[in-house]
């Protein structure tokens, strides 16, 4: 993958370039926004890995300008930074120090999502699915347990929630699901548990007049939230 790495600290920048290059990525590096903008015009990167705070600006602004899939790193990340990043389509958000392995894993997921290529599925003995995606640097493998529930009213939502119990064992996850399902008139919730990451997709109209506390609680419980511009929660995850 043609990757632009923007990092103002020289030692981190060179370590990322060297490490990610060993995984087969073609790396261009920049130390600031102005250098990055010049490289974008020449090299047309497929993805961006950027520090949040740069000497002449903000990595989020750069990501918004370029419009390619991006991953952010920061030494002083706040929850608000993470939410803004996710709103802009950030694929992942790391607080430094980051490891090459973590970044590579995020890049593999990103590449798999971009490619949308064939997925090899093996059923594991415990009923979970093992998915394998082809990526630019090899294969990305995930163990996936998935559950889809749908409801048309509050009573059905509660009944549907009971079906999630096996897929969503941890209390914070169940709490998030319950909150989401209670603030919708009807909808569908897909919950995926893959490796150490739990994620869910909500296809529903959230009744925000009932969801003031819910929204606050979700932000407390979730490490990652993604909100659409009109305020609907469309994706969240909890590592």
């Amino acid at each position, binding site marked *: 993958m043609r990757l632009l790495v923007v990092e103002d600290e020289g030692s981190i920048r060179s370590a990322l370039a060297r490490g990610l290059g060993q995984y087969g990525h073609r790396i261009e590096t920049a130390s600031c926004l102005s250098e990055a903008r010049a490289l974008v015009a020449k090299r047309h990167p497929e993805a961006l890995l950027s520090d949040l705070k740069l000497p002449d600006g903000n990595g989020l602004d750069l990501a918004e300008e370029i419009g390619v899939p991006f991953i952010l790193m920061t030494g002083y990340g706040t929850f608000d930074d993470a939410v803004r990043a996710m709103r802009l389509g950030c694929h992942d958000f790391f607080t430094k120090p980051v490891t090459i392995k973590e970044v590579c894993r995020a890049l593999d997921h990103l590449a798999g999502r971009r490619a949308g290529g064939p997925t090899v599925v093996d059923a594991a003995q415990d009923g979970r699915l093992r998915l394998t995606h082809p990526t630019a640097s090899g294969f990305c493998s995930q163990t996936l347990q998935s559950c889809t529930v749908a409801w048309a009213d509050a009573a059905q939502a509660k009944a549907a929630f009971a079906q999630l119990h096996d897929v969503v064992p941890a*209390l914070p996850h169940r*709490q998030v699901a*319950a*909150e989401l399902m209670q603030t919708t008139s009807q909808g569908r919730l897909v919950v995926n548990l893959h490796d150490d990451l739990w994620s869910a997709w909500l296809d529903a109209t959230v009744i925000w007049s009932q969801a003031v*506390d819910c929204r606050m*609680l979700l932000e407390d419980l979730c490490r990652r939230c993604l909100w659409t511009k009109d305020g609907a929660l469309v994706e969240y995850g909890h590592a």
Partner: protein
Amino acid sequence: MPNAPRKPPVTASWSGELLWPQDLEDGDVIDLSGVQALGSWVLAWFRTHPGRAVTRASPAIRRQLVRSGVTVVWVDPTPSSQSGVLAAERAMLLGGES
């Protein structure tokens, strides 16, 4: 005229994962020691039942209630090493008289 004897405060004990709406026992004091999780519908309950005394909440539950801004009175349990009636207990039992 002599004062009518005060009734002792009624303590309601809640427990479990209160994620979905259900009937909640009401009381002057709500003991949250057995509660593992509070859904936001419980915060709405506290808004319609303001001024309840709340005791023995876990740090996470306490944080959730504080952050939500609901009107509750925090009552800390008496340390076992102390004897007698503390001023805070007396205030709670007698409605602020000391």
